[in-house]
Each structure stands twice: as structure tokens, then as C-alpha cells.
């Protein structure tokens, strides 16, 4: 295992690598095709290098634990608004998720539907390409169109274009209050319609999820609002009125219960203790119930108003065959190593896009040593 402690050491290690490297942060997200190669552990690049609460900006070395970033933000009443998912419960992993890996996998949570994904909060990156060259793109300011946006390209590239050494993020104020507007017993279609109504309202809904089998096995639709105390009370009442036609509506105001409910959606808690493969689909919300229906799923959780669908299926199920042609993308998030090796973990791209993607990989990593094959 190679474990650099500085960006310079990281660059040296990549430049000197004789073969493939398997890049690891906290090791909590083994998503993608298994990579054969020497482990390159980035957790040694650790620490927040700049935090300006008045400018809503935080810069941290890639190996910094997310928990450390969140603690620093909380101390100033701020947060990572994109609410990165913690994969440990779903994937049965341990260790500490790192901020670099959050960016590398573009990990977001329920609030993505309102405020944007991790990639939308990324202001800049420093990384080491496959040649061992240290590169930077973007910076620490909120508006920056100076040159090509390689920062966004790096977000979600899962270490296949470069190894992140530092990330710069926009952060937002935390909120004083939150509430969940809950509706019980809806069908999948009814839930998507209710979530659509909520998201189409002027009340800035920051979460819209539907658990097909809620806490007591009955369907539960959840709408989240956040803000000032009076604002949340006002909006909860407005939404209660707006959604009254869909079913029985009630409002949960207990902060601990609201937080726990959304952490459960974020981390896909309903599938934690159940066996089987887990797929993640990004689709047009109105098409979600139809697509889900043809998957024969054993478990189903909708987030992003239906735009994100989590599916629990039998181990080894060839879901792509069941899905057929659809607009969006599907990722096999949890499966055995053998299953991940045998299947297309990420959505296959049409020919011209696949050619562009592989062209980019060749430019950033001409020797093909950075997580080779991980994204297929």
C-alpha cells in the first residue's frame, strides 16, 4: 500500500507507479467494478486548509474525514447543503468517509433536488493526473468561469482521471428549524404526484421522498421544509393544505425525528438489514413508477420527488435487461465483487459519448493506471 502524506508525495507515487493503482479514501464506498492494483491510500492528505464562514467557503485536503468537515461547519452554524450520503450502513463497510471521496463520487443526499448536487457546490480542485502532474482548476470563489470546468469533470470521475488532493466547497448556513409533512398510504403514482405538487409549490421543499414500505410496512411519503421557526410553521401549514387531497396528512416537528427520518432516506436505511443487490436510478420523476414497476423490486425507495429510485432486487438479478431502454441512468451500488465484475455497474453510454469519455481518460491517464476499469 502506498500512503502519501503530502500532495508532492502523492504526485511522486503516481509518477513512479509501475502498474495500476486502486485509489482509496476511507474505503466506505466500494462502488464500481473491482480494480486490481496496488492500493493508494489518500487519507494521509488531511486537514482543513481554509474556512471563511463569511464567504461561505471551505477548502480541505482530500483525505479529511467528512465528520471533521461537518464539525468545523457546525461550530459556525453552517453545513454541507448537498447532504452527502453515508454509504456504510448500506454497504456494510466501516471506516471514515473522506471529503475527497465524496467529491470523487459526486455523493449527494435528499436536498439535491432543491439546492443541487455535490458537484454544484464544488468551487475548485487540486489533483494529480495519471502522469503524476499536480493540476488545479477552479479556485475558492463562488463564481468562476476562467477556462474549462475540469472541477466538475473531476466530480464523479471516481479517481479515473486523477487523484484529488484538495477540494474547495461552497457551504451554506444551517437552518434554525425543519419539519416533515407526511402522507400515509399512497400508491407509487400517487406519491410522485404529491411530491410533484410539493416541489412545484413556492415553499422551497428541500426533500421529497416516498418509502414504499414505511416504518410499519405501510407506504409513507415525506416532504421536508427548512428555515426560520415561523417560516417552517407557515410552510408546513401551507403544504398540509396543498397536499390534503392526496391522503391523510400530518406534520412532524420533533427535530430529532425529522433529522432521523431524512438521514434514513439519505442513507437508504430501509435496505440496511436486507440482503440482495441495490441499484440506484436517476430518472424523470413522472416516469419513475412505471420504470420501477418493471423491475420486480423487493424494496423500493423514491427520493428527489421520484427522480432518484433505490431498488432492492435479488442477488445477481440482471436488472438492465428488465429496465430495457429508459431515459436516465442506473448504477449497481451494492452487489458481490463477482457480480460487480460480471455486470455493467454504470450506465453504458451511447457510442459517441463513450468515445469522448475514453478519449478524456486517455488524455488524463495515458498509462491507464488510475482505477482502471472501475467505471467500465
Amino acid at each position, binding site marked *: 500500500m502506498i500512503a502519501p502524506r503530502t500532495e508532492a508525495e502523492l504526485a511522486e507515487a503516481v509518477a513512479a507507479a509501475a502498474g495500476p493503482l486502486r485509489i482509496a479514501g476511507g474505503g466506505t464506498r466500494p462502488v464500481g467494478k473491482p480494480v486490481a492494483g496496488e492500493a493508494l491510500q489518500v487519507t494521509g492528505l488531511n486537514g482543513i486548509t481554509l474556512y*471563511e464562514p*463569511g*464567504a*461561505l467557503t471551505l477548502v480541505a485536503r482530500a483525505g479529511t474525514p467528512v465528520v471533521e468537515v461537518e464539525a468545523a461547519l457546525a461550530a*459556525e*452554524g453552517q453545513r454541507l447543503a448537498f447532504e452527502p450520503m453515508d454509504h456504510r450502513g448500506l454497504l456494510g463497510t466501516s471506516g471514515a468517509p473522506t471529503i475527497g471521496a465524496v467529491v470523487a463520487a*459526486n455523493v*449527494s443526499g435528499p436536498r439535491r433536488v432543491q439546492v*443541487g*448536487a455535490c458537484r*454544484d457546490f464544488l468551487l475548485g480542485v487540486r489533483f494529480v493526473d495519471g502522469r503524476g*502532474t*499536480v493540476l*488545479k*482548476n477552479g479556485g*475558492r*470563489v*463562488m*463564481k*468562476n*468561469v*476562467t*477556462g*474549462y*470546468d*475540469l472541477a*466538475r*469533470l473531476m*466530480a*464523479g470521475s471516481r479517481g479515473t*482521471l486523477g487523484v484529488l488532493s484538495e477540494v474547495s466547497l461552497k457551504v451554506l*448556513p*444551517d*437552518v434554525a428549524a425543519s419539519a416533515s409533512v407526511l402522507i400515509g398510504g399512497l400508491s407509487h403514482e400517487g406519491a410522485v404526484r404529491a411530491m410533484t405538487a410539493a416541489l*412545484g*409549490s*413556492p415553499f422551497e421543499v428541500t426533500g421529497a421522498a416516498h418509502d414504499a414500505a414505511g416504518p410499519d410496512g405501510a407506504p409513507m411519503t415525506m416532504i421536508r421544509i427548512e*428555515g*426560520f421557526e415561523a417560516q417552517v410553521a*407557515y410552510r408546513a401549514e401551507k403544504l398540509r393544505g396543498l397536499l390534503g387531497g392526496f391522503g391523510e396528512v400530518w406534520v412532524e416537528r420533533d427535530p430529532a425525528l425529522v433529522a432521523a427520518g431524512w438521514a434514513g432516506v439519505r442513507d437508504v436505511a430501509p435496505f440496511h438489514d436486507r440482503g440482495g443487490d441495490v441499484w440506484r436510478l*436517476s430518472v*424523470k*420523476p*413522472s416516469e419513475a413508477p412505471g420504470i420501477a414497476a418493471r423491475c420486480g423490486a423487493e424494496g423500493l425507495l423514491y427520493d428527489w420527488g421520484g*427522480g432518484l429510485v433505490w431498488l432492492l432486487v435479488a442477488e445477481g438479478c440482471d436488472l438492465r435487461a428488465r429496465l430495457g431502454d429508459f*431515459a*436516465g441512468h*442506473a*448504477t449497481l451500488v451494492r452487489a458481490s465483487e463477482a457480480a460487480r465484475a460480471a455486470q455493467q455497474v*454504470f450506465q453504458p453510454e*451511447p457510442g*459517441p*459519448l463513450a468515445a*469522448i*469519455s475514453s*478519449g*478524456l481518460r486517455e*488524455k*488524463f491517464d495515458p498509462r491507464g493506471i488510475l482505477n482502471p476499469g472501475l*467505471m467500465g
Partner: protein
Amino acid sequence: MEMPVPNGDVIASKARIVARLRGVLAADAVIEDATETRAYECDALTAYRCPPLAVVLPGSTAEVAAVLRICHQEAVPVVPRGAGTSLAGGALPTADAVVLGVARMNAVLETDYDNRFIRVETGRTNLSVTGAVEEHDFFFAPDPSSQLACAIAGNIAMNSGGAHCLKYGVTTNNLLGVTMVTMAGEVVEIGGAHLDAGGLDLLGLICGSEGQLGVVTEATLRILRKPEGARPVLMGYDSAEVAGQVVSDIIRAGVLPVAIEFMDRPCIRATEAFARAGYPDCEALLIVEVEGSPAEIDEQLGVILQIARRHDPVELRQAADEDEAARIWLGRKSAFGAMGNINDYMCLDGTIPVDKLPYVLKRIGEMSREFGLDVANVFHAGDGNMHPLILFDANKEGDLEICEAFGAEILKLCVEVGGCLTGEHGVGVEKRDLMGDQYAPEDLEAQMRVKDVFDPAWLLNPAKVFPLAASRQRRAVAA
């Protein structure tokens, strides 16, 4: 401004190239007469002009593809053009280039309120995207000052922002998908009505690539439900430092205004003379706007006004009704017109960390005296995106050069304090040669390698973004 020497072979082949273009487009969609191509000799950076070889105005993605295939075969550089409002010379042609304007492609292809998106052809103007959905109380968030005229094509090429980015983000945060034609004439679909990329984030890469990677002909844009209401407050201070502190304090207080705009004294005086909005004559003026229901607005403004008062304002004005709100915005919205009324001006676009605001304003003031040219500052203070307007006289020998040298110093200052050359206008030709101040040669090389993937012959908008010296070899191989 140095531009590449035009390819003589291309110019000599003009008749054949035009004939081939006429073969795939309607008769009135190919402009080659020298008196008519002149209309396309520049964009809003009017200091630099060059009539192109020809102009094409295709009406569909298929026609764009046909044009690009021909230009690709003939090795003709292509300069994509939206509405021609670029302040950075992003659509400046060369004499051997075909300007590909998307202005005729302005249709709304699909509106979907349930899934909250609109699909449009990219020649459509920014404001008319919102225009197409506002009867359902939806809007498209990016709102550059030129929104009445600028095209979505240009918004995507430059990753445009606007006054409301602090809350709603810039174009890249509101773009879901594109139909793009590569230089080789291949049509590709990236993204769609769903969120985020399944593989590499090619959409994020395309947005802001200044028309150098492909011609975007259709776009799927995120639309949002309008807030219940919005209301601005105006505050005046006797120093920029104090105003900067107010901005920082508001953000730290946990309030996220939808916009925080800043104007300095020269700008206030110019807009007063022009628009008579009734602004106080002070060093620094802030306009802060928040959204929500009337009660929600009151609560947020309560917090903001408390902070504002703590810093001893010379003026604090709330809007009691729509009329008063419009008056608060009036001066800000007419700032650019007001400056243009006084003089020629160059509008810069550097971004700085918000806490460096007082220092940067002080340095700009000092430089203004050194260079002997006046500067007015009007900008988006919440996100540090500055717009210093340097006043000069285009008819005075040497004034433009002094202005450009002054502008370059300001942008270098922005980089020096941890910011960047351009926050929302793009690099174009204007800031091309300053890229070396922000990026190391290897950083620029990495970006140019990206262009190699999409446009190996370097035919799309080739003389932009990168210093000419840095891209020379690639362009020479192509020629």
C-alpha cells in the same frame, strides 16, 4: 489584440465553401456579401472587429451538423455565436472563419411543469425562457444583465451568472441536458430531464467551454417555481470596508439573501444623473433582496436591518410596495447604461474572496490615479463577483491601451488575492493572454488536451480562452 493569421487557402476557397454551404441551407441562411457580414464582425466587445469569411444561420440541429461537416472537411474555423452579447470577444471572428449563428433556432420544444424543466433551442433569449413559463409561475434562474438579448447558447458557452446566483447558482447548476453537434458534425445527447451524470460529467465540462468543444443547439433547463414574493432594502455607508463587513455579517447571520448588490460613489453619481433613482450620495451602497411570503420577508429583513443599523448607515430604505422596490432596483439596473452615457467603458468581471473586498477596492482606487482613468464599481457582493467599469475615450489616441493595461492589473490583483479573472463573462479573447497569471502551463495544457478530444483539428473558436502562444502549435498542426 493579436489574432491568428487567417488561412489563405481557406480565403482563396471562399466561393467553393459558400457554394457547399448554400447546398445544405436555405438561400437566406448563408451570408457572404462583405456589407452584410460586417454585422457579425464583433460582439459586445466592440473594440475588436473582423468581418468573417461568411455567416450561416441554420434552422435546425441537422443543418448545424451539415454545416459543421462541410467546415470540418474544408478545414474552416467556425465561430459559434448566440446573440453576440459577449463582453469578452467570445464570438469575435477571424477573416477565414464561418460564423455559425443560432439566432434562428429559438423554439420552445417542450415544457414540463411536473418534472420542472423546459427544453429549448439555444438561440432563444434568456428572458424569453422565463417568458415561456411565467404564466405558470415558474422561472429560469440565471439572469445575466443582458438577459433581454443574450441567448441560451451563449449562457451555456460562458456559464453565465447574474444577480441572483447567491441563492440559485449559475448556468451549470441549472442545466440538465444538451444536444450538441461536434466539429465533425456528429450529434450527441448529453444528460436529459433526469439529474446528474451516470458516467463522467460531460455536461459540466461543456458548460463554460466557450463554444470550443461543440455547438450546443438544444438545451434542457431546470425551471423553478417563483417565490411568493421578493423585497429589496437599500443601505448606504460611508466606507467600502464597512459595507463589506455588512455583507459578511449578513451571510454569517444565517440569512441567505437572493441578491446582494454593491455600488460605489462614482457609480452612484453616474446612475443618479441618468436614472434619478434617489440614491444617497455615499461611498458604498448595498441592495439586499430576500424572498418569501410577506411575513417571511419581514423576518429576514428584520435580521438584515439589525445588522445594517449596527454599522451606522447613512441611509436605510425599505420598500413599502412594488413601486418603491422598483425604485430601489432602478439605479442598479440602469448602471451600465448610465456609464455608457458618460463615456466609453470597459467592464471587468474578476471574482475575489468576499473578505478581500475593501482591500481590492482601495487598490483599484490607487491604480485609477496611477493610470489616470476613472473607475466605477458595481457588482454582486454576495459572491465576490466584481464589475469594475473603467472609463476611457475611444476617440483619444492611446486611451484604449491604457484602459486595457489598467484592466489587466485589476484582474491580476483579483488572482493575487485568491480570486479569478472572470466570474461570469468568460475568457474569450479579452482575458486570453492573462490565463498564465491564473494557471500554470500544465493546468492550461490539461485543458487544451480536453479540446483535443472534442476538436482535434482545433477548428472551433480556436483563438479564444488560451494564450495564443500556448495554443499555437495545436492550431498550426490543424492548419
